[in-house]
């Protein structure tokens, strides 16, 4: 295995691209862009609905209903393409910005909104959809994806795990340990690094001196692939290929998806302090949804009817989020004691009683 990827030339700096920014198909012939029309429409729907949901999250934060939100605007193609090619039983290990992937898995706006509302950490019910809770510490969950992949090996499954990491995460020691463990154990794990240009205010050029994030794969003895992260079909195809290899026992892959975080790091951030309007405008012109719509129009898959359906669903999902968040009940305080341990400790029982007594006195 290792010698195959031990050459810097094995990583192509030019990202895989199946659809050009102007919406026309590229000459790339190593990967297929031929998906059934219903799959193509589904991807479009997911991207549009994700963007609508993202906007609603921001609105709700601005209206004081949510404590914080981390927008994925601009990264819809990357995260939806990566998650869409997998099976429902393949585990996802998200960072925290992957609402497109959550939506795809059937995680409801209410379940996602719980995090940003401050209702509960991690999200609600994610694991029922084979998706780990969101991970606020950066890059630490890559190891969980590797462990889960090692579990799949031991269960005799042909499932894969997908770890979503960012460019900043690749500087963390745990990202290194995850990549190395995955390679050593030949774990069926795909590392999907969304290189969105910025780790809050620090650009990728300050995270590493390597030619690219994908080049790091050489040191781990696994394939490293760069993909245009604003090209949903390229992301789909590259992850599908890596997942297929992993299922067949071919081990992990490091994929760097080059994309851009159009919004601030979170609603608490002010990106005008560290990046230029020119840069943002450059990436706005490379918008993944506009590109994909133009492509679908070109191949005759887009229609007014599709647009109406997609717009209607976006509206419904936005309303669902708003309804689930505005005035939502908090959990009973007992939950914060009862969920810590499977077998609660006597000390926690006493502390729970203490809080109940405090509340009873206030009432």
């Amino acid at each position, binding site marked *: 295995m290792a010698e195959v990827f031990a050459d810097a030339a094995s990583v192509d700096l030019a990202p895989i691209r199946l659809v050009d920014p102007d919406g026309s198909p590229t000459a790339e012939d190593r990967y297929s862009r031929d998906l059934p029309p219903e799959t193509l429409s589904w991807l479009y729907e997911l991207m549009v609905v994700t963007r609508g949901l993202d906007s609603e999250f921001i609105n709700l934060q601005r209206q004081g209903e949510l404590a914080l939100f981390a927008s994925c605007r601009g990264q819809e193609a990357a995260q939806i393409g990566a998650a869409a090619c997998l099976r429902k039983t393949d*585990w996802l290990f998200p960072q925290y910005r992957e609402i497109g992937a959550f939506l795809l898995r059937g995680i409801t706006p209410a379940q996602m909104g719980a995090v940003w509302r401050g209702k*509960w*950490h*991690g999200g*609600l*019910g*994610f*694991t*029922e959809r084979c998706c*780990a*809770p969101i*991970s606020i*510490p950066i890059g*630490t*969950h*890559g*190891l*969980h*994806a*590797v*462990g*889960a*992949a*090692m*579990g*799949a*090996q*031991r*269960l005799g499954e042909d499932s894969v*795990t997908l770890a979503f990491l960012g460019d900043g995460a690749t500087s963390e*020691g*745990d990202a290194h*340990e*995850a990549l*190395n*463990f995955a390679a*050593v154990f030949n774990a069926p794990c795909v590392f999907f690094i969304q290189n969105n240009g910025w780790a809050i205010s620090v650009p990728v050029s300050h995270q590493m001196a390597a030619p690219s994030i994908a080049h790091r794969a050489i040191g781990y003895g696994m394939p490293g692939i760069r993909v245009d992260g604003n090209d949903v079909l390229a992301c789909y195809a590259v992850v599908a290929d890596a997942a297929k290899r992993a299922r067949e026992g071919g081990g992990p892959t490091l994929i760097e998806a080059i994309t851009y975080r159009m919004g601030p790091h979170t609603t608490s951030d002010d990106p005008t302090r560290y990046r230029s309007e020119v840069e943002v405008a450059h990436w706005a012109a490379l918008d993944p949804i506009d590109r994909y719509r133009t492509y679908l129009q070109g191949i005759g898959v887009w229609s007014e009817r599709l647009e109406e359906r997609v717009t209607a669903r976006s509206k419904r999902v936005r309303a669902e989020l708003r309804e689930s968040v505005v005035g939502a009940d908090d959990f009973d305080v007992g*939950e*914060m004691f*009862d*969920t*810590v*341990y*499977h*077998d609660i*400790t*006597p*000390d926690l029982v006493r502390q729970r009683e203490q809080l109940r007594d405090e509340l009873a006195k206030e009432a």
Partner: protein
Amino acid sequence: MTQIIERPPMHGDDVPEPRGPILTSLPQSPTLTMAQAINRALHDAMAADDRVLVFGEDVAVLGGVFRVTEGLAETFGEQRCFDTPLAESGIVGIAIGLAIRGFVPVPEIQFDGFAAPAFDQMVSHLAKYRMRTHGDVDMPVTIRIPSFGGIGAVEHHSESTESYWLHTAGLKVVVPSTPSDAYWLLRQAIVSRDPVIYLEPKRRYWTREVVDTSTPALPIGRAGVRRIGTDVTVLTYGSLVATALSAADLAEQHGWSLEVVDLRSLNPLDFDTVADSVRKTGRAIVMHEGPRTLGFGAELAARIQEELFYDLEAPVLRATGFDTPYPPARLEKLWLPGPDRLLDCVERAMGQP
């Protein structure tokens, strides 16, 4: 209800002995060293539940640097007992991923001092995972850490880490002091659906006793009285239980009767047993190896004065290590709390400074 545990044999407490080979078919009540008892517990746990996995640095082919995992890879195969790359955060990180998929990981951190690289995974994820998933995902992970000092080791091989874990909600912490307790606490930790940090007092690895592997000892969450006394309660755990028992022999010569409580389980803590003893004696001394400031002794002293103030005849005292980094091996005997430091506290508690 106070549970009396017979005093363990003192033979070989401080002198490492060569061990015999691990037998694949052991009698139910063999005489085992603590290291062998832990090995036997791992064997039995892996045999009882095929979801149990043992992994870490040098645990498979070598059988562990203390040979505690000897024979596991041969018996259960490399899928269930395997060597990992040298990366402690990675070891705990994959344990979490394996637990998500329904496995029961029992990773080893080779030495106490090397738990530090795994701190983030243990504190930010392992401890919080159940709560973060609103109780949907249990973390039945038992992390074994050969711990504490007294073996003449180099730096970073003699640390007391329990306070870090005890200050982290979501982790249970147990420390055996005898081979029997080592066996049963580990079996119970592995069966537990919660993450358990299992600290092995490595200077007692070679103490021997008959271990009854058919009848469970006290569960996690229960302390045991190792010696009954009337004047002073000594609260301790792990390697210092034997030290406290020797000090109790010496104290008897001065006419002081020490009751030695082996805490065994630091979280959950059996404060009822502590309270029963302190109410009886009116005096409490906490003894632990780790530095004094914010050691477990601080918590116990606070708790005893909060709940038992009017039962006390003397302030709660602490016989501990010092607030220095663990010293070089040639100085460790002076640093570690021994019978003398404990007896100084006993004198003070008895009003004879």
